[in-house]
């Protein structure tokens, strides 16, 4: 007994120890809803982790196959419910690619404008949640105030805060309401001010820095191997942004930069989202300056609903309306994979048509799905408390991951 006390290390070696399994989620406040994480612990250290998903599975693909092409839109709202316009745009661009048409010039700008507002909302949500779950409640309040300002603009524009269903084949559903541009120009400085407040509160905060720097590191090649895209991939220094690599809509006319990280850790993923908010802000301002007048939807009754004047005033209009509603538009047979830059990475839609009014299949590549699959790789070797910032920084959205 006495010789053990002489050497404290020997005493520790005699202590019985075994691995412990801990369940995190699905109803855990930091799990953002629906993921269950079965973690195996050796003391405080994570030796293994198994994510379990599917609690929010709604059968996106199966439901889409039973709908007409436009009826799929409300389902896409619910994929990434923080930035629904980006999903709407991604899906409808897939249908347009299948048909082989493009939307009108004004609609292109409107889509970019709505998309970038949504991107800011998404990044703000992610950053606020990191702050909240690391104890900085003020950050969360700032983030939510900024997000509410933007969601109010989206609500008066599209009619809904988050379930927008706002795009249409060949254009968009609603034009900017009167006074919208002025109100947006008024609220944007406040949004950027709040973002700046978050920046100065968190970025050089000792506690925040220590808890995120060097945590959950992954390098660029490995991140690609795991299927990372978006901010999580760019935090590793890989320059891949669909808006730059394959510009769609009017992104080629926008002057913006793609911020890159260096170390690929949690801090980089956080700071990158802040920088991207600034770039999205730039794009929004350019959009507001450049946006041309004109129609918001194409004048092709095979795909777009006729104006109400024609529906009630002409036989052709009422026929076109009836056919589009009852049968859906006839999309030529084919198979496409279309990809756009979602808020968390490449949002892909694999769409197959057999030439009828319903999609034969619509499958979605939610950017969060591959990133979540790498979560065990990111948290292994860290302490239990590190799960929360790492999990927050990948910004997993249940709706798109679990379809």
């Amino acid at each position, binding site marked *: 007994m006495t010789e053990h006390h002489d050497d404290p290390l020997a005493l520790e070696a005699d202590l019985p120890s075994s691995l412990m399994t801990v369940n995190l989620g699905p109803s855990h406040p930091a799990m953002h809803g629906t993921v269950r994480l079965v973690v195996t612990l050796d003391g405080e250290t994570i030796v293994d982790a198994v994510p379990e998903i599917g609690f929010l599975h709604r059968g996106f693909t199966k439901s889409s196959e039973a709908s007409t092409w436009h009826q799929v839109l409300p389902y896409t709202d619910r994929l990434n419910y923080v930035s629904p316009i980006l999903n709407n745009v991604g899906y409808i661009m897939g249908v347009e690619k299948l048909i082989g048409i493009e939307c009108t010039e004004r609609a292109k700008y409107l889509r970019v404008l709505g998309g970038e507002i949504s991107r800011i909302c998404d990044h703000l949500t992610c950053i606020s949640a990191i702050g909240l779950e690391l104890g900085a409640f003020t950050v969360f309040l700032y983030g939510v105030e900024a997000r509410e300002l933007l969601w109010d603009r989206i609500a008066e524009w599209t009619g809904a805060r988050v379930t927008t269903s706002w795009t249409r084949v060949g254009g968009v559903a609603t034009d900017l309401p009167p006074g919208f541009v002025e109100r947006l120009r008024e609220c944007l400085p406040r949004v950027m001010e709040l973002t700046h407040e978050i920046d100065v509160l968190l970025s050089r905060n000792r506690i925040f820095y220590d808890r995120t720097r060097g945590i959950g590191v992954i390098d660029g090649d490995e991140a690609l191997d795991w299927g990372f895209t978006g901010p999580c991939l760019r935090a590793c220094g890989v320059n891949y942004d669909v808006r730059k690599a394959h510009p769609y809509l009017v992104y080629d006319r926008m002057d913006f930069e793609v911020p890159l990280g260096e170390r690929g850790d949690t801090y980089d993923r956080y700071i990158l989202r802040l920088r991207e908010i600034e770039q999205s802000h730039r794009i929004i301002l350019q959009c507001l300056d450049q946006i041309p007048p004109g129609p918001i939807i194409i004048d092709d009754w095979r795909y777009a609903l006729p104006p109400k004047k024609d529906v009630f005033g002409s036989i052709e209009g009422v026929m076109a309306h009836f056919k589009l509603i009852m049968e859906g538009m006839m999309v030529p047979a084919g198979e496409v994979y279309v990809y756009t830059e979602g808020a968390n990475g490449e949002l892909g839609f694999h769409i197959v048509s057999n030439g009828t009014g319903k999609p034969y299949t619509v499958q979605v*590549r939610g950017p969060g799905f591959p990133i979540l699959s*790498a979560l065990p790789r990111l948290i292994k070797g860290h302490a239990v408390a590190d799960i929360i910032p790492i999990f927050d920084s990948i910004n997993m959205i249940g709706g798109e991951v*679990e379809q």
Partner: protein
Amino acid sequence: MAQALVDLLRDTFKEAVLSSHSHRGDEVVVVRRESVQEICRFLKDGEARMQLLRYIACVDLLTYDTEMTGGGALASNEVPAYDLAKKAPREPRFQLGYNVYSVVRKQSVRLRVELRSDDVKVPTVTSVWRTADWWERYLFDMFGIDFIGHPNLKRILMYPEFQGHPLRKDYPTRKRQPLVAELEFPDLIRGPGPGPGGAGVPMSQTHVGRKNVDPTTYD
């Protein structure tokens, strides 16, 4: 640019590449099932530098020629909405589409593997891309595709007790497999469980003339 890649694949794998075409700008290369691992390895490590596996899609062609427009028969929870007897189903029935991408060269290509319905096995590519792990589990879950050599091939979105594969076209849209017994909902337009019309009654007819009943009387 993308054509060069297709030519390279054709030259390197003369036996394995069956055909290739381009549709709406997407390059598609149909490859033999046995060589999919080898080709993927070549695409990733070779000069193509296809480091990113974007997505593995699966298309069930069972009703591709017979499925028609118009809502209706999907209200059935017993039989699929389409008449399978009208036309012989397509074989090979399943098409896997591996969408791969090179961040360096900014090129993408889709490898297509065709599978017959009586033999839905394909070699896994998890050894090439780690991300294939979950995508293949997803396809196993939804379509019942058997990925030979996958380290952990089990359901990912559905629960382990689930019977069948929900994204196959012969799985009825409204079929339900509750783990605990559901409450009896006698009527709701699109509510849970079978509608009042039962099998084969179009959804559009199930609520026509429905009595305006007080929802609180349900239990």
